[in-house]
């Protein structure tokens, strides 16, 4: 019989379960053997390219494709007219709006899709684009979201019958306006700010694309597509193309970054599918970088007006009014009942008495999108808002910004905590985490250094941000996308050898799922992670689920994998009892084996149990052979990771250049499955925060031309702008999650921009009277603020 010595021996280097395990997926990537979309070559494959509008708003008078068709390598040119015959000229968006696949009546944003060329090779497809002649009649343009609400603003969505304004969704409210008014009336101090979260872009290093391969003989549509939510897309295509879902297969293979950019359905995808159906051959469409920046799902673009108040030294109320710029079509992704996403978590980490939030969404002549770039469904906007407002309040009160936060934190004993806007936070030790950050930073020493430097005319700033976010959407009672519940499945099957395959519905784009989910199975069953294969990214071979975004993989799929592993473990217990000739209740579990409580030397390893399950020997009464289980996990709530961030900046007094000298991040994401991967996620998100705070901007001129359509103009931080991140942790488990884990992917992008902005304001307030600078804080914009005239972006 098996003994303790037979257990797989975990080492520090190779934990069986949670721990710092090096990644399984690295093996192919470090050799250059990943399979990204552009690496796939199918026999007879054709190449598509999109002709895009040079105008932000214009009628299309005519399209002449004849010269393009004369190009020897061009196979077809599709326009809206061609798509209309297939019923594909317009497509549904994830927000129940519609979006033009190819513009028919008019174009509504600079870069909008107008025609689709299919050629035998990529270079020819691009050579053919200038041969298509489009006659436009320019129309007045509106790119300012406030102006879009003017009664005489150009009407953008005249495709909607009876539409007379540019409102994108009905105005949405949360909290209690009257209660908030009362709290403000009683307050000692009030601070008010106009704060913009400018348009930026997730810009993963791999652009978006698809290979569509329709087989006319079988009616099967095979799709290769880097896609964060493949099952949802399959459902959409089934609906749009009139195919049964089981006739569509989406394979994601390796994805070169997502960050929310690969959640929406893009016109290029529908063109590729239509092209393949029409041409009877595989059609690849892969956008270039300018298309990615100009037309795919942007992030943010929130114009916020807010007031915050305090009484007796504690924060008591918050009011926010938002104009949300959705671009020309509403293609934002968020649960149906939450058209402003989770923005109303802007009540933050504080024990407020009242809050009121109002969001008005508008159309403008800009690319569609809004929910992307590690935002957790608008939580980036929410946290930025509240953390800037808390600092504004601290300025008004003349108190230390950390002291103000600590006086107002939700206390550990108050959890689960119901916020004024309807969230139930699960757990937190906010003050403890804040203390850890202060210690790593050496906060008091930093303040001393700041005072010394200030005396010498040097501008050093210390900024803090404390965030709570809600991730892991979500409970089926409250959340769906396009009517699809946000529950995720997991299938676990153990093979006779004792090795396992776990199939997930979430979709990695670099988060390390092939390692971390193997670690969950390892933790629950004691099977070494190298013996657990993680399957995902193929709709034919994975259970239905809503994909990876909003940091939901660990909370939802992680929960599913934990529960499905426990189901297998429970079945294993019954089999072990038969093997050991005892009762199941007499058995106890230690990782990797069931053993007899009174006689620990007597046990059965999970591999032995698995062999038994497939063998011909007797099984327990009523139990089928094999060892596997399936689950669909309905999370009872979101999870609420949180963190305390401290940023140190130096601002050149003459050039106004901002250098991030240090960044301290203490995250509490509950139990950590793989600390190495958690830290890596945080590093990456912090870099994005530096980019957003200092240099990333999608802007438009008055004619609606996008000014940031390349990496020369859309600036992303390099190794030179990023400091050596300093990380710390506290661990406050999630009480309702099977593993106690909360998820962390978006926390750093959520929490870092306000810390950086707060730091710059801190550097400049005393000497220059600066109270706010909108992002991105380029040297020019910081300098303008120092001169007393801060400018909004664009």
């Amino acid at each position, binding site marked *: 019989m098996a003994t303790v010595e037979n257990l797989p021996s975990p080492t520090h280097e190779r934990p069986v379960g949670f721990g710092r395990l090096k990644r399984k997926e690295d093996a192919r990537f470090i050799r250059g053997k990943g399979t990204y979309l552009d690496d796939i070559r199918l026999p007879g494959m054709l190449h598509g390219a999109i002709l895009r509008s040079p105008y932000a708003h214009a009628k299309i008078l005519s399209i002449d494709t004849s010269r393009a068709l004369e190009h020897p390598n061009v196979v077809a040119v599709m326009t809206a007219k061609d798509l209309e015959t297939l019923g594909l000229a317009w497509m549904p968006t994830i927000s129940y709006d519609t979006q033009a696949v190819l513009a028919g009546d008019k174009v509504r944003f600079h870069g909008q899709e107008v025609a689709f060329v299919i050629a035998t090779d990529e270079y020819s497809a691009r050579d053919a684009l200038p041969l298509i002649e489009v006659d436009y009649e320019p129309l007045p343009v509106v790119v300012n979201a406030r102006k879009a609400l003017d009664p005489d603003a150009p009407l953008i969505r005249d495709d909607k019958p009876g539409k007379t304004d540019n409102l994108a969704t009905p105005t949405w409210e949360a909290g209690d306006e009257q209660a908030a008014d009362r709290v403000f009336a009683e307050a000692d101090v009030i601070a008010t700010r106009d704060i913009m979260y400018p348009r930026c872009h997730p810009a993963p290093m791999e652009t978006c694309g698809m290979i569509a391969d329709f087989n006319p003989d079988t009616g099967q549509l095979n799709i290769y597509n880097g896609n964060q939510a493949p099952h949802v897309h399959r459902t959409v295509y089934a609906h749009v193309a009139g195919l049964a879902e089981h006739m569509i297969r989406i394979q994601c293979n390796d994805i070169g970054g997502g960050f929310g950019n690969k959640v929406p359905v893009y016109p290029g995808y529908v063109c590729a599918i239509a092209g393949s159906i029409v041409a009877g051959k595989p059609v690849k469409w892969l956008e270039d*970088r300018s298309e990615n920046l100009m037309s795919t799902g942007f992030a943010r673009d929130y114009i916020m007006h807010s007031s915050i108040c305090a009484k007796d030294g504690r924060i008591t109320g918050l009011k926010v009014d938002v104009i949300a710029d959705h671009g020309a079509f509403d293609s934002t992704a968020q649960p149906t009942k939450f058209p402003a996403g989770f923005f109303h978590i802007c009540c933050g980490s504080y024990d407020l008495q009242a809050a009121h939030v109002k969001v008005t969404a508008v159309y403008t002549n800009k690319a569609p999108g809004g929910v992307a770039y590690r935002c957790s469904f608008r939580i980036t906007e929410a946290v930025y808002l509240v953390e800037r407002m808390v600092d504004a309040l601290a300025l008004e009160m003349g108190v230390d910004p950390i002291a103000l936060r600590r006086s107002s934190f939700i206390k550990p004993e108050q959890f689960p905590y119901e916020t004024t806007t309807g969230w139930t936070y699960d757990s937190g030790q906010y003050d403890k985490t804040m203390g850890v950050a202060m210690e790593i930073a050496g906060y008091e020493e930093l303040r001393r250094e700041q005072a010394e430097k200030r005396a010498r005319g040097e501008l050093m700033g210390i900024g803090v941000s404390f965030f709570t976010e809600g991730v892991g959407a979500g409970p089926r009672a409250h959340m769906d996308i396009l009517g699809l519940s946000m529950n995720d499945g997991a299938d676990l099957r153990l093979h006779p050898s004792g090795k396992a395959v776990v199939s997930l519905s979430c979709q990695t784009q670099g988060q390390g799922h092939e390692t971390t989910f193997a670690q969950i199975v390892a933790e629950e069953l004691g099977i070494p992670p190298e013996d657990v294969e993680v399957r995902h990214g193929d709709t034919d071979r994975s259970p239905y689920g809503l994909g990876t975004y909003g940091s939901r993989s660990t909370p939802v799929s992680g929960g599913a994998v934990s529960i499905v592993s426990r189901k297998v473990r429970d079945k294993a217990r019954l089999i072990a009892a038969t093997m050991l000739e005892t009762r199941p209740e007499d058995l106890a579990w230690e990782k990797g084996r069931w053993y007899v409580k009174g006689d620990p030397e007597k046990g059965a390893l999970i591999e032995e149990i698995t062999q038994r399950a497939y063998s011909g020997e007797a099984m327990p009464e009523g139990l089928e052979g094999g060892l596997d289980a399936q689950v669909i996990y309905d999370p009872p709530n979101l999870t609420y990771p949180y963190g305390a961030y401290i940023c140190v900046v130096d601002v050149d007094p003459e050039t106004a250049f901002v250098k991030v000298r240090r960044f301290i991040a203490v995250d509490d994401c509950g139990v950590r499955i793989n600390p190495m991967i958690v830290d890596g996620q945080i590093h990456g998100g912090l870099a994005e925060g530096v980019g957003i705070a200092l240099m990333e901007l999608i802007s438009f001129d008055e004619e609606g031309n996008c000014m940031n359509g390349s990496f020369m103009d859309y600036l992303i931080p390099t190794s030179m702008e990023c400091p*050596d991140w300093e990380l710390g942790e506290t661990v406050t488990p999630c009480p309702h999650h099977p593993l106690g884990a909360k998820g962390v992917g978006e926390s750093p992008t959520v929490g870092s921009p306000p810390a950086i902005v707060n730091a710059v304001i801190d550097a400049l307030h005393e000497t220059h009277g600066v109270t706010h600078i909108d992002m991105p804080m380029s040297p020019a914009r910081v300098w303008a603020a120092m001169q007393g005239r801060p400018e909004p972006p664009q």
Partner: protein
Amino acid sequence: MQVTITINGQTVSRDVPPQTLLVHFIRDTPGLTGTHWGCDTSNCGACIVQIDGKAVKSCTQLAAMVDGHEVKTIEGLEVDGVLDPIQEGFHEQHALHCGFCTPGMMMASRSLLDENPDPTDEEIRVAISGGICRCTGYKNIVAAVRWAAEHEAPIKQEV
């Protein structure tokens, strides 16, 4: 026109239009899709290879310009099943997430260590500043190159 380039020690010769970019010439060679591209303006560095031992952005050269020269790509780092210390270092230090910028980062790092076997962290950051990583935040890439430098030195000393 006929373009002949030695890639990872193998002669690759094809008839391609003159405007063919080096990155496409490489990627259209069977087994060599490890060199990536991510932008249009020579900023992202995913396409970095070595030409005659020097790091170059392969999206910004015509294949014709490299005719008669030697190119090394990520696939050429591993020799006879033995990984380059750079490759090991990236794995050891978790210096990659999605893996898309990784070939460029590794080739830039390889070039650095070829010229400067014991770089400072600042020198490493400068050397990789021609590439953009959206995932890692760079800290672990610096650690990976440091690891490779420390694990190469003994081998180089023996040689």
